[in-house]
Every structure is written in C-alpha cells, then in structure tokens.
C-alpha cells in the first residue's frame, strides 16, 4: 500500500467540494441563530453557495485529467461538466422547492442544508476514483435523502416512503459494497485504474474472471437499484408518491446524474474490459425498464406515480445507450440523462406550481381545464409531456433519436423496435395529462396559479429550453460525446 500523499496544490482541484462543505458548515450554524422573519436568508445563502460552487466547477472544465489524493479523486471534464449541471439543476430545484415548502409549512433551514449535503455526496461520487470514495459519496447522498423524505414528519406516507427508501437503499448499498469487496478481493486494489489494469490483463485465471464476474453482477444490481431500473424499481413509485413533491423532484433529477457518473466510473473506467458481460445485463434491464415503465404508468391516476414509472422507462433508454458498449453510445446515454433531468425538473415544477396551501395537485384530474385559466403553463406542461413522449421538435425526441441511432448502429434492431413501440404506448399516458388540461373543463377553480414570480420565470425558461435546445441540440450532443 502506498502512503497517503498530500499535496496542497491538489486542493485547488477539489475547490468546488471544499467550498460547498465550508458553506454547508457556515449555513448550518448561521441557521441556528436566524429568527423566524429571517429564515429566507438560508435559502438565499444556499442559492449563492450553489452558484459559486457551479462557477468553481465551471472554471475547472478543460483541466487535463488529474488524479489526486492518493488516487482516490479524479478531476476530468466529465466530473466538472456533471458538477456544473448538478449545480444548475439543484438551483432550479431550490427555486421550485421554496414555493412548495412555504405552501406546506415545511420551510426549515435543515432542508437546504440536507440538500447541499446530498449534493456534496454526489460531487464525491462524480469524482470518486476509488471504490471507497465512490461508496462514501453514495452514503453521504443516501443518508441526506432519507432524512429529506422524512422532513414532513407528521405525514404518514412521507414517513413510510422514507422508511421504504431507507431499507431498500441500505440493501442496495449492501449489494454494491458486496460487489466492491469481491472486486477488491480479487484485484487487490480499491483504485479504479488499478482495477482496470487488472481486468485488462491477459493472464487472468478462470477463477479470477469468475469472481470478477460475480462482483460485476452485484455492482450492476447496486447501480440498477440506485437508478431504479426494473426489476430493482419497486421503491420508486412509493417513494415518489410518498415524499413531499419538492423532495420527489430532487430525487428524480440530480441524484440520477450522480448514479450515471458512478456507473461510468465503476463499469466503464474500471471494468471496461468486462463490457460484453455488463452490456448484456444492461440490455435486459433496459428492455424490462422500458416495457414495465411504459405499461404500468398507463394505470396511474396519481401524477407523481405516473412520473415515477415514466422515469423507470427513461432510465431504460439511458441503460440502452450504455449497453451499446461504444463511446458514442455512452455519449448518447449522458445526453439522454441530461435531457431527462431538464424535463423532469420542469414536470415537477408544474406540479409544484399548482400546489396551494395544504393541497397537493398530484392527481391527474387536478389538471382539468388548466388551459382555460392558465394557458401559458398548460402550454408549458404540453411541451414537457410531448417532449417526454419523444415528439419533435422537443428535446426528448433528439435524446431518443440519439439512443436509437446508437442502438441500431450496434446491430440491435429488434431492441430498437421494442423501444419505439413502448415509446408509443407511453405516449398514451402523457396524452392523458394533455387531455385533462385541454379537452376537459375544470370542476372548480382549484388549479389557479399563485406561485411567486421567480418560480414562474424559472419554470418558463426551463420549458423554453426544452423547445430551444430541441431545435438546436448540436452543441449539447457534442458536449455529451466529448466527456468520454
């Protein structure tokens, strides 16, 4: 074992994480001393901290790949770009959250601190270059999320969701850790690049391959759990429905980026040599996720549950990109997950927008007649739903196009056909929302928008991006490809 090297200049490369951690500590302490009228300060400080962290990460884009802290932390373009996107998404999510929290009397400083902590965990995951760092990041993330879900502690279903997420999340972590221990046991290293060298060596004994394969299966299961891919999806709908909507929005967006980053670190950077094995596993997970996500969503009457199944089906498409086993396929998958985060944020944004004091607009029938009293936000939701269904010119279409192109190019025509057929089936439930908004009249005036201007503005920009990036997707596709 090498001794721990510490070089102060490498601190600069971890600047975003260090800054965010300091900010968390300061805000946590400060929040204790804020009296009720000044609680909003926490929110603004959070936004500022996230923004500065994003800027710090942005400045590191283009830095040549460097591995620091005794081979446990990597800084490359993928890490920096993902961090920037995470900060952006988190800031948007916080704008939406604030409205929700005030409406439901959940506005507490801890909420923002926990969110920042979970983001810190995700940043560690994105940059993790040893099995331990990755696991550490994952646990920082997960523990913060368990608590976040339970923040509405007097709501029975929120507590139930938190417990469910905790138990299943612990199992997932356990499986992941089990897989990691096997990989460590056989390769003798925690370091991703050393594992890669080991897996690549031509002189692997069959016993070693077998154990590596076993480890791989557990790693894939752990990742699939975290992403919510079928058949490890059981927690997704319940947690999505039970958690406070702002937390659901957060779970369904930013952590997915981190999980994808962890997938890249473990399976592509680390076990790239085993690609044929995990590709096949992903193929099965992807097809099952797309199929089940599309079909079961048809029967949902709760929009949060519907979006949960829709997420499962989107994750299927992402896994399909990774299953192709080529660089451009990985690029397509990353492009898809970025697009998904953009769409999912907006979708939950609309749900939160329609929240009123003590009333959650989470049933599909709550959207009845939205187009007559709030035509702009009905249009926004229309764009989001069509984008999720993969109808051009919205961004969701190009994400699917990119994936399908890679899948077909990899010779998996049948899988592509299965995917498009289920995409059509899933269009039906997106149409249900459009139907409620446009084709039906409101029962009463319960869907009137009362959100603050900043939220309305951010949500509008979010939706416009879904269209504009859809019309000009070139830059984003290139960006996603450049990360590999």
């Amino acid at each position, binding site marked *: 074992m090498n001794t721990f090297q510490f070089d102060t200049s490498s601190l600069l490369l971890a600047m975003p994480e260090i800054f965010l951690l300091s900010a968390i500590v300061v805000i946590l302490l400060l929040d204790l001393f804020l009296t009720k009228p000044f609680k909003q300060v926490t929110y603004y400080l959070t936004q500022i901290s996230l923004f500065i962290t994003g800027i710090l990460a942005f400045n590191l884009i283009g830095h040549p790949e460097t591995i620091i802290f005794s081979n446990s932390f990597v800084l490359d373009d993928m890490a920096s770009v993902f961090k920037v996107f995470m900060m952006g998404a988190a800031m948007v999510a916080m704008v939406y959250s604030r409205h929700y929290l005030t409406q439901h009397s959940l506005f507490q400083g801890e909420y923002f601190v926990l969110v920042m902590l979970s983001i810190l965990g995700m940043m560690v995951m994105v940059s993790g270059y040893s099995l331990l760092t990755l696991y550490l990041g994952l646990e920082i993330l997960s523990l913060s999320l368990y608590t976040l879900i339970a923040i509405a502690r007097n709501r029975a279903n929120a507590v139930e969701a938190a417990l469910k997420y905790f138990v299943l999340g612990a199992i997932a972590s356990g499986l992941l850790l089990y897989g990691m221990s096997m990989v460590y046991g056989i390769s003798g290293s925690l370091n991703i690049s050393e594992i890669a060298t080991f897996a690549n060596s031509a002189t692997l004994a069959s016993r070693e391959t077998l154990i590596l394969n076993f480890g791989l299966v557990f790693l894939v299961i752990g990742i699939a759990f975290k992403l919510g891919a079928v058949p490890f999806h059981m927690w997704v709908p319940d947690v999505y429905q039970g958690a406070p909507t702002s937390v659901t929005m957060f779970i369904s967006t930013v952590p997915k980026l981190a999980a994808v980053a962890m997938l890249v670190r473990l399976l592509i950077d680390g076990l790239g040599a085993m690609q044929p094995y995990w590709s096949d596993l992903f193929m099965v997970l992807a097809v099952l996720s797309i199929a089940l996500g599309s079909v079961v969503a048809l029967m949902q009457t709760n929009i949060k549950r519907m979006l949960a199944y829709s997420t499962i089906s989107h994750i299927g498409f992402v896994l399909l990109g990774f299953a192709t086993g080529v660089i451009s396929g990985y690029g397509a998958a990353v492009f898809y997950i970025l697009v998904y985060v953009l769409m999912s944020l907006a979708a939950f944004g609309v749900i939160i927008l329609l929240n009123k004091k003590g009333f959650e607009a989470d049933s599909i029938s709550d959207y009845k007649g939205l187009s007559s009293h709030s035509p702009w936000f009905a249009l926004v939701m229309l764009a989001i739903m069509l984008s999720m269904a993969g109808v051009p010119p919205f961004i969701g279409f*190009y994400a699917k196009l990119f994936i399908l*192109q890679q899948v077909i190019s990899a010779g998996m025509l049948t899988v592509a*056909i299965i995917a498009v057929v289920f995409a*059509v089936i899933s*269009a039906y439930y997106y149409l249900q929302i459009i139907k409620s908004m446009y084709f039906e009249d409101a029962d009463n005036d319960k869907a009137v928008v009362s959100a603050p201007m900043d939220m309305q503005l951010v949500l509008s920009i979010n939706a416009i991006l879904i269209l504009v990036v859809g019309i000009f997707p070139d830059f984003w*596709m290139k960006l996603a490809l450049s990360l590999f």
Partner: protein
Amino acid sequence: MDAVYGRQATTRDLIMESTLLSLLIWLPIFGGGLLILLGNERVTTARWVGLAISILVFVMSLSLWTGFDSSTHLMQFVEKSTWISQFNIHYHLGVDGISMPLIILTTFTTILVIGAGWEVIKKRPAHYIAAFLMMEGLIIGVFSSLDAILFYAFWEASLIPMLLIVGIWGGDNRVYAAIKFFLYTFLGSVFMLVSLIYMYNKGGSFSILDMHNLSLSATEQAWIFWAFFMAFAVKVPMFPVHTWLPDAHVQAPTGGSVILAAIMLKMGGYGFFRFSLPITPDASLQFSEVIIILSLIAIVYIGFVALVQRDMKKLIAYSSISHMGFVTLGVFALFLAYQPDNPEGALLGLEGAMVQMISHGFISAAMFLVVGVLYDRLHSREISTYGGVINSMPKFTGFAVLFAMANAGLPGTSGFVGEFMVILGAVQANIWYAVLAATTLIVGAAYTLWMVKRVFWGKITNPAVATLSDINTREFFILAILALAVLMMGLYPQPVIDAIHTSVNHLLQQALTSKL
C-alpha cells in the same frame, strides 16, 4: 437563375429564391405563436391577423409556381445549412414537381379554413386560428424537407396542432377521436424513424436524395418498405388501418376536417412518392399487388360502407378513403402497367395519382365545408334531419350539388381527371383492376347523389329547415373559390400536369431501376 425566371434575375429574386421556403414555413408558425401571445380577448384582431398571414403566405407560395422550372426534375428553391452536425443532419429544403403543387394546395386551403371558422368558432378563437397557421407551416415543412430527420420532425410535429384541434374544438366524443388519431399515426411513424436511422447507419447521410441512391439488398428493402408502409398507409389512410379517420373526421370541427382530408392525407401519398418508390423500388415491385388489392378494397368496399352512413361527415370521410385508394392504386399499378415499348400507361397512372391528390384536396375540402355550413345552422350532421334544403338555401344548394358531382367524378370536374387517368393506367396493368376501380364511378355516384337527394331535394320534412338562411357573402366567397378551382382543374388540368410531368417521369425511372 436566368433559366428559372426567364428574365434577368435581380437581387430580390436571389434572396427570394434562397429563403422563400423558409419564409413559407416560419411565417405562419411564428404568426401562430404571436396569436397565442395575443390571447383570446382581441378576437377581431386575431381573425384579421390570421387571415392576413394566410393570404400573404398563399401569395408568396404562388411564386413557387411562377418561378418553377418544369423542365427539370432537380430540386428548386433549395436551402441548405448544417443543423445537427453530429449526425450530418441538415436544414435542407427544396421542391420539385411533386411537392410544389401540394404546398400551394396547403396555403390555399388554409385561407379557406380560417375563413370558414370566422364567426363560427366561439371557444378560444385566437388559439383556433393559431393552431391552423402552425399546422400550415409544419405541413409546408413536410412537403419541402429534403433531410429525413427534418422531414420527420415536421411530420410528427404536425400531429400536435391536429390533436389539439380535434380535442379542443371537436364534438362530443372528441377526446377519444383525438387520442386515437394521435396514437395511430404516431405508431405508424416510429417504424419509419427506425428505418431512416437504419439507412443513415448504412449510408452515413440523412439526406433524402442520398437515400434515393443508397443500395439496399432485397431483404433490407422489404423491411424498409413495410416500415414506410406503416407510416404512410395510416396517413392515407389505406384499408385496414383507416379506422381512425371516420372518428377523427366526425369529431373534428369543420376546419379540422378540411385540413385533415385536404392536406394531411396527402402527406401519406407524398410519402409513397418521395420515399417508398425511389428508396425501395424492388420491394415496391415485389409487393405492388398486395398494395393494389388493398387499394381496390378501399375503393370498392369502403365505397359501400359510405353508402350506408347516416351521418354526412362520416359519409364523406369514407368517401375520402375510397378516393384516396385511387392514389395508392395509381402509384403501385405502374409496375404492372409498365411496358418498355409503351411507358405511357405507367406514367399516366402515376400522374393520375398526383392529380387525384390535388383534386381530392379541393373536393374533400368543399364537401366538408358544405357539411360545415349545414352544421353551423342546425347543429346536426344526420342526413335525416334535413330534406328540401334547396327551398330555403338555393344558392348554397347550387354549390353543394356541383361539389357532389365532382365527388362522384363527373367529367368536367377535377374529380374526373385524376380517377380517369388512374383507371387508364390500371387498364394497362390488368383490365380487372380497372373494372373494379371503375365501379367507384357507380358506387360513388350512388352514395353522393343519394345524400344530395335526401338532404337537398324533396319536401321539407323538418320545420327547422324551412327557417334556414342562405349562405352569407363570406361563405359564398369560400365556396365560389373552391368551385372555381374544381372546374378549372376539371376543364383544363394541363398546367398542373405540365408542372408535375418531368418530376413524375423521373420518379418513374427511379422506381423502375432495380437497386439489386
């Protein structure tokens, strides 16, 4: 340039030449966006803005006709710039003799639709006009895209306004009809997308013209052919995937029915022209008999189905399916009709299909507008509600009977020309095909004239009919313009045939050249 305009080209011509198609596409789309922002309160402004934009677009589209060089099959008014460089996707527009008339048909019909909805639409009138303007731009995009992904984007995006038109402004069962329409056509199209991507992976280009030259094996062609068939047959619609059409038509507002019948169905026919024949010529040859038989079923069987309808809109919807059967018949009969020493028969069928598409655009628009006029007055589409309408609406009945005659294929109207040409082509293919197709002249006459008899002639049985007011100036104008178009096409179709001839002839050569 000189050749195109036959005179010295000016800078203005050059600019027009290079941006005309973009203007035709984006002017109505942004105009529609403007109307959405304007909101539904300022109704009069919205109507006039909508009308002004649609007239402007129509006038501009006429320069496609006047500036068109019909001596070449090459694409004209071409615009090309990189769109998504990652996949070699271009913003590539251009027209030939096949797409140009369809674009003008689109711009022409849009004016009528906006006119027809003038005072009738009370619910969200500005959004109604906006939907049709956006629809217009998107459909022009479909007809002028030379890049497959651009084509697909316009093709799918045009579903969105139609979904909303049927779903918001439609009849009682509009939700079912709108969703059925969307899912049917969406399902058909995704297979087209898969085969387009497949060809891109093979040839490295999404350019439709490059795909025309892509060499494909017999198996590949067969798969791609059926994938295209799914997309285009649903749109045409062909038997047995036609069932969405009567639902959509019956529930759609008048304007929606007009656009659906006059233009959206043509997107399917256009797809056969632009994609199926040139990209998969061998598969088209191989499966031509299947398609011909499906077309004949559409012509004959659906004709009989039309005969028993009690709802006027349904009757016309079925009649639409039957008449569109001539388009697919004309297209696919060419393989059987072609004889090296006498290529005229095949060409006649193909040109007939093209003429039939344009003519059906006029006639179906007219028929749906006629029903719309009646529906606006009595809010019923049941044939039995009416009877003796001529007594209270003589001017209107004059137009209605003319259009009915055209629908039945009376010589002198546009309905005759296309069907006659297709039948002539079919005679060379197989005399029995021609005989079966020609029965439509009887069945079509039967259902159309029977409807005319029950609605317009005879005694007034329903007292409400006696109180009907005849068409006003606005309605008179709309119907008169269409009547003019139907008669001009019927009496002197030569300009249209001249414009399409070279392109169709080139397409025929492509279809007859084996790729194997």
